[in-house]
Each structure stands twice: as structure tokens, then as C-alpha cells.
């Protein structure tokens, strides 16, 4: 797979969300809140994720004491008209880096939809 290629609907994506033992900013059942999938201005319309087939949960989560890891099937992303592309970082730090594109800053439906379809990865 080359940089910029669309990701197959059968692939899975990882997205991490802030949640510590002290600050439990996930749902009571451990699932992601919509804020985990919310764009911020610096994202420039591209939500960073990792391609599951190119990494491991431990590598993707970085610091498990600060973050939870959630997985999401790419077909779910495509179901709501979004796209995802493979975007490995040029410095070689993260070969799994990918982007979900098509969301806008004002979009509140997509973050909530993706959160409800995601599952927590137990590390």
C-alpha cells in the first residue's frame, strides 16, 4: 500500500482517546465518547488514526496510562460518506498512520456515530 491510497472497507482502524485512572473521560462501559472522534482546528479536516494491520495495540496507544485504544472497521467510516487514506509519516516514526477525511469542524453527527460503532481494545 502506498501513501495516499484509499483503505479497504475490510480493514480496521485504531483511534486513541484520553482516559486515565484519575480522569475517566470514556463512557461508563468503557466505550469511546464522541469527543474521541472530534476534529480540532489543527487537524485541518483530517482525523488521525492508525491502520491496525500495520501496527500493534501497544505501539498505537503509546502511553496506556494516559490513553485508551478503540478500534473501528473502515466500512463504518465509509457508511457515512467519509473516506480513509493511508498516510505513513515521512520520518518513519509511524508507518501505520492514516487519515479519516471528509468531516468538517461543525460536524457532530460523524464523531458520535463513529464512537458508537467503535470498540475498546483491551491492552
Amino acid at each position, binding site marked *: 500500500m502506498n501513501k495516499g491510497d484509499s483503505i479497504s472497507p475490510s480493514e480496521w482502524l485504531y483511534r486513541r482517546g*484520553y482516559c486515565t485512572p484519575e*480522569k475517566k*473521560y*470514556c*463512557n*461508563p462501559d468503557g466505550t469511546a*465518547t*464522541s*469527543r474521541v472522534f*472530534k476534529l*480540532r*482546528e*489543527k487537524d485541518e479536516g483530517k482525523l488521525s488514526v492508525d491502520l491496525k494491520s500495520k501496527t500493534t495495540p501497544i505501539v498505537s496507544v503509546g502511553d496506556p496510562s*494516559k490513553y485508551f485504544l478503540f478500534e473501528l472497521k473502515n466500512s463504518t467510516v465509509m457508511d457515512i460518506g467519509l473516506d480513509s487514506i493511508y498516510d505513513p509519516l515521512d520520518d518513519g516514526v509511524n508507518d501505520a498512520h492514516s487519515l479519516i477525511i471528509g468531516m468538517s*469542524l461543525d*460536524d*457532530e*453527527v460523524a464523531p*458520535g*456515530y463513529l464512537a*458508537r460503532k467503535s470498540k475498546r481494545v483491551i491492552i
Partner: protein
Amino acid sequence: MQALTANYSTRAEIQRDQYLITTVGAPQTDRFRSPSLFILTDNRFHEEFRLNNRIFSLCEEFAELENNWDGDGALRPSSEALKNINYVANVLESTGYPIYNTAPGPNGEIMIDLRNKLGTRSVELIFYPSRMVVVFFHESQEPFQEIFQFDNLPNVLEWLNKY
């Protein structure tokens, strides 16, 4: 909004009355006549028995977050968002409606998540520094979002609890 709370006792009020009857005793006792003791008892009740106690605790925590609280540049929750979420949480508490969850977002916003008993519908109220949004999720319909106004809260709850 007033119409939500004016016509009946809330679950919290009923629990408080039961608590006072069983622990404070009959009105003729000296303990009940002491205004200071009554206030202490009342406050203790509120700490222990609030329906959405976890949510209120989280709101207090959100107020202490600083910029970059998530290590990825998230803005601290805005004072307007904090004020609005506290208002809505208190209205829902006074009507006996449980709040499923609340969470801060990366852009200074705070989200409240409400769900129906069957888990078939849910609603998110999202409070930004300068706007409020409501998002409707139904298990078999397309989700949609609207601008939220406080006056619409009864309609939002009505949609959430339709069968």
C-alpha cells in the same frame, strides 16, 4: 423550563424527605428544631444521594482542566460551556432524569450524553463557547444535528423517550 419542575416532587426531594423522617425523627424533637442541624443534614443528603452525582463531580473536575489537558493540544473547557452544562445538569437532576455521561472535547466544548432505557435512542447536547448543538441518534434512523436552545430541552427529552 419551569414547567418541567413545577408540578411534581422530584425523586431527590422524595428521597430527602424519607431520609429526614427516618434519621432526624419527629418534628417535636430538639434536633429537628435546630436550624443549623437541619442544614447540615440537608447538605449531607445532597452529597450522598444526588442521582447524577458522578456527573456533577466530573463537571467540577472539568473546571480545573488547563489547556493541553489531553497532551494533544485540547483547549480547557470554556466558562460558558461549564455554566451551561451545570444549568442543564441541574435541570435534569431536578426532574429525576439520569445523565449517561459527560466529557470534555478538544475545542473547549463539553458534551452531555443522554440515553433512553432501551438503549435504542440517544442524544448528545454539546456546549461550545459560543454555540450549542443537539445530536439525535436512533438505532434504525439516520442521525441528525440541530442548533440547541434551552427551551427545546422538553422536546429533546420527548424525542428521546418515544417508543
